[in-house]
């Protein structure tokens, strides 16, 4: 029997810990949040720097000077785009071919898994510039998703014109050590996913996305730049980095783009915020904090913010450069400047001897020139989630001592031998039935979309209604279970054990998640920790009621609803609250459908995380008062 398992010899420290556990929880939570907010403050983060020396951005001479060529490309492309419903393949292909590049088409089919299961076909176009005297073992990629001016996300035709112009310029250069792939995708992310799957001959979504075959390939792709340039004259570059499941590109790549655009006097922003003048003032913190929070918010969604987001899974460092013309500083750059930035980036990438491995893959950015490394944000997150573990340990210890007290109360028990004491030792296995059944339910939800969709089709529901209604019905049914609480109590086991296990599971989940997507983990921890720690602390009726209400608010679906509501109200202050509520409700339905879709097509983990871990834990918390 050791320190943790024997209460007799508990040191003073442990007794103290038991007495002040709750205060410790509170303190840790509050300090964690404050610390996390402070990360945006200058003394708590660092200036970015180049870790990979081979990039040599300072030595890259930029010579791109296309004259009016890019504008000509842009004009003809606009005309072509006007007369074609899809990508003007023939024209684009001919342009690339005339430069002496290898041009290929890539056909793919999406078998949409829901509703009437329609099939969508798409066709990407890509060209490969083979580096002279190199063996095609490495490549860099420049991509543009094809969008006509009518597209709601804005036209990308200027980007394609710039790409053509760059391709022509690159072709004349002798210094390339890596092949350059120029990719124009159709249907946005699906096109990217299909192309990447085909390139790596892998199947991310078997049966759903038929990625087709590629005729020509280059070697391992070292980095990818995705261009979304909306106008021929821009005010600034906005750099987007958040990828699928919260993955980020190497910080060096981000630094490279920022550095080179600074050198070309093209302002670069991150989340539409430029680098504030470095100051330790309140104002400086406020701007940095809002940048940091917008990154956290976007990363927490786990959705890619552009085509680059899908590359990260294949260990390809990628980001999107978005050229916008509505910046505060007015028009600052034309095609030449944009082209030179990209030329610089590509020449730097061409210098790489090894694939990106230095610098950081896990970081948060409070501005374009400052970063918070994993070593700085992890302690803050650790403190926010720590109450779960503190409370769990506390519960476990008190469980122990209460049993011991029982024993002491009955006379003649002191002389019992060790074995007998072992028997009374609380076994956490007692919580197994509850944990197991809640996870089974989670699995059911995970498997349900296809069936609910089928039922929805029979009932003639809309696509998003079918799945959402089904799930809502299932979850509502489960909510009612506590009414039959007497039956549940037969499961046996003590209340403390259940609480302890729930806290431990939640803690393990959060800490694991923080290694993958710290933003999501922090967000969930901030919301879940207080409710989870307070669960079952008091048996007073009023407390139970209030707590149940809180719990309902953090139900995964409800949480999505609240987030959408806040977002909608924040973005649009003129509308009435009722409208916002209704808008958020339709939003939830879409979010459920999209997250299921993303799981089927892109292997986005949001749906799995929600149904496989978050929901079961929530259910365990919900059942707690009745046990």
């Amino acid at each position, binding site marked *: 029997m050791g*320190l943790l398992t024997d209460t007799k010899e508990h040191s003073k420290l442990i007794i103290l810990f038991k007495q002040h556990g709750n205060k410790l929880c509170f303190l840790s939570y509050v300090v964690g949040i404050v610390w996390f907010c402070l990360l945006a403050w200058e003394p708590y983060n660092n200036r970015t720097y180049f870790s990979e020396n081979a990039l040599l951005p300072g030595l890259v001479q930029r010579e791109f000077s296309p004259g009016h060529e890019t504008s000509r490309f842009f004009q003809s492309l606009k005309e072509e785009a006007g007369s074609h419903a899809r990508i003007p393949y023939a024209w684009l292909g001919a342009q690339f071919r*005339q430069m002496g590049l290898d041009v290929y088409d890539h056909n793919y089919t999406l078998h949409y898994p829901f509703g009437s299961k329609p099939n969508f076909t798409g066709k990407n176009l890509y060209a490969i510039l083979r580096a002279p005297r190199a063996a095609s*073992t490495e490549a860099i990629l420049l991509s543009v998703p094809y969008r006509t001016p009518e597209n709601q996300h804005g036209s990308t035709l200027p980007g394609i014109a710039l790409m053509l112009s760059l391709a022509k310029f690159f072709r004349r250069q*002798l210094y390339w050590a890596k092949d350059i792939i120029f990719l124009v995708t159709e249907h946005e992310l699906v096109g990217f996913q299909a192309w990447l799957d085909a390139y790596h001959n*892998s199947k991310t979504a078997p049966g759903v996305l038929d990625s087709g075959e590629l005729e020509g390939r280059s070697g391992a792709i070292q980095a990818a730049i995705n261009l979304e340039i909306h106008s021929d004259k821009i005010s600034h570059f906005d750099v987007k980095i958040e990828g699928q499941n919260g993955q980020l590109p190497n910080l060096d790549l981000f630094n490279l783009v920022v550095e080179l655009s600074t050198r070309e006097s093209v302002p670069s922003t991150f989340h539409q915020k430029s680098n504030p003048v470095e100051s330790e003032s309140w104002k400086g913190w406020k701007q940095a904090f809002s940048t940091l929070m917008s990154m956290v918010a976007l990363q927490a969604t786990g959705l890619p913010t552009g085509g680059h987001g899908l590359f990260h899974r294949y260990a390809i460092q990628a980001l999107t450069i978005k050229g916008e013309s509505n910046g505060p500083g007015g028009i600052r750059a034309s095609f030449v400047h944009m082209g030179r930035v990209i030329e610089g980036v590509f020449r730097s990438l061409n210098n790489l*001897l090894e694939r990106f491995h230095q610098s950081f893959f896990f970081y948060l950015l409070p501005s374009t020139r400052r970063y918070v490394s994993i070593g700085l944000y992890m302690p803050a997150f650790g403190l926010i989630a720590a109450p779960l573990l503190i409370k769990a340990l506390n519960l476990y210890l008190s469980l122990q001592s209460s049993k011991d007290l029982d024993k002491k109360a009955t006379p003649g028990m002191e002389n019992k031998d060790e074995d007998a004491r072992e028997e009374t030792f609380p076994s956490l296995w007692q919580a197994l039935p509850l944990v197991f059944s809640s996870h089974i339910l989670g699995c059911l939800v995970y498997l349900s979309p296809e069936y609910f969709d089928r039922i929805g089709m029979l009932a003639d529901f809309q696509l998003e209604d079918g799945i959402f209604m089904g799930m809502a019905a299932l979850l509502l049914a489960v909510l009612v279970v506590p009414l039959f609480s007497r039956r549940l109590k037969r499961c046996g086991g003590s209340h403390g054990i259940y609480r302890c296990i729930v806290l431990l599971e939640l803690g393990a989940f959060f800490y694991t998640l923080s290694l993958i997507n710290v933003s999501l983990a922090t967000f969930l921890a901030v919301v879940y920790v207080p409710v989870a720690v307070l669960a079952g602390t008091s048996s007073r009726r009023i407390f139970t009621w209030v707590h149940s209400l809180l719990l309902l608010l953090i139900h995964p679906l409800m949480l999505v609803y609240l987030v959408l509501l806040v977002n909608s109200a924040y973005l649009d202050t003129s509308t009435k609250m009722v409208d916002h509520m209704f808008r958020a409700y339709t939003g939830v339905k879409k979010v459920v459908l999209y997250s299921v879709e993303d799981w089927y097509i892109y292997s986005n983990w949001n749906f799995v995380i929600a149904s496989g871990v978050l929901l079961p834990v929530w259910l365990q918390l919900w059942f707690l008062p009745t046990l």
Partner: protein
Amino acid sequence: MFLKLHGKEKIERTFLNFMIVSNFVCGCVIALSNDKFLEELEIQPLPSGHVYTYMQFTTVWDVDKRPGSCLLAQIPGKLSSLYLCTYGLPLQRSLGHIRAFSCSTLQVFPLSLGEILGHHSVQELPYISAPPGAELWTWFKEETPDISKAWSDLTNALSGQFCASLNFIDPTNTISPRFSFLPQGVASQSYAKNYSLLRYSALPREAVCTENLTPWKKLLPCNSKAGLSMLLNAIQVFSATYVSLAVDVRPICRDNDCKEASLELRLSISIVFEPPVSHKGKQDWSLVKLFGSGILKACPLATRSTILVHTTSNQTLGKFLLSPEPSQVVTSSHAQDKKTYAMYDVKKILQSAEQLNIVASYQKSHVYWITSPPILSATRFITGYGMEQGGIKTQLYNNHPSKSMKIVYLEIIPWFLRVYLHTLQLKTSGKALKPQVVHFQPGRDRTHPYHFEIIATLPPASVTELSFQFDRAFLKWTEYPPDANHGFYISSAVISTLLNSAKNCSRIPLHKSTILESLIDRSVTYFIRLHTEMLLVSLPTPDFSMPYNVICLACTVVALAFGPIHNITTKRLQLVEKDKNQGLFTKIKKLFWRKSYVESDKEETKKNK
């Protein structure tokens, strides 16, 4: 070492170096007489806008047939040591997209003596097929006592000779292929079957540069001071799109009876230029533009010095005018394929002119076409992502509309990629294709590579996919190269086959030595060898940096601390009651005579009672 060289003094001197190398393995004396030296350059403008130049310097010695002197004298019964050393810059990709070149990286090799005599050979462009990096293969003579040692000696000697890192060839990247490489030159059937005499190795990472070209040029009798070799200006050569150097040594028949053998040394260099890129879209070329200078002097040692310009495409594709007028127009026809060449006799021209500069001027700017694929082509790539597993897939295209094609596929995989034989699949348009022969030799960690050869028949007009899976091994931390995160190279796969048509291909027949001889050849089948791309594979690599060291240290501390902490938290320390009245003496006694002490102890207790 006794070296007796007849003939031209110059050759003697310049070849001395190489002969020392040769003798290293031969271990015998070569006596020479009646030797000849031929230099040839073929220039072929391609529809892809490239200009392909192939320069070949052939030296043939008639070796004395002296018993016990040299292996070469014992032909055809017993065969000699032969070396072939091909360095290539990655041809695959550079030429892979030159479609008209179609049979882009192909090479001649005899299958066996019988087949050579049966005129089995292939004429194919480019003349020498080379994988990216360096490739070396050698047939050793039968009486070589220790082939492994001879191989290691040879690689080291060649490494010194050509300033190449061929000394990195060791058992971990050497194999003895069964079917893909057969003896070059004259050889008996029985000899050709004894593949244990063969060593093959490829170093994909080796790059060709000036330090390889200089020693290579020094092997030429006129060095680079006269003759065609004047064109080999390092700056021009290495700014070209593609360069490949090759050295072949083989025994050949001295005459048609083939009673005696001669030793042939063939030095060749293939260079591909891309004039439209540097000349404003026109394919114009000239010797001065391509090589930086014309030919000022003819090599007096050369028996013949010829420049051939391929003019077959002059009628169809972009028309060009040649100046000066060629000395002669040569036509060769293989079955239906007719080829015309403009021939220049360098010696003759330089008698009257001061300088020879062949200029081709085009009327129009170059237009890039969609070029038709070659009859046989292949691409190879890595499948999957992540650091745990992976796979390699090769797509073999048989583009012949009606004829199936039998191929030999050779693959060498380094030991650190653990290949699973059961995952090896051969599929033609979705259906499994049964290979005729599969020879698989499993690799062994740090000892030898995985190697397999497959003989299969590709159906006409089909794409056949060959794929297999592997696991990535962990290397020991000292085994990583300095640039561990660059990745590890896998050398090209080698595909060999016999073709029935020499369309779009150029090749010197196996029984011929020079390009000019090949033009009058009447072979029916052509042996070709194709190299696929080399691959770059990432292995799980530790972070060799300060944080890595910190992590290692922290993990060690945690590992050390775990035991005590686990003990403290899960076990309880209990006091053991001690004997109260023990003196110092008894303690010492207890230490040494435990048993007797215990006994005495018992007695004491009895007494006490």
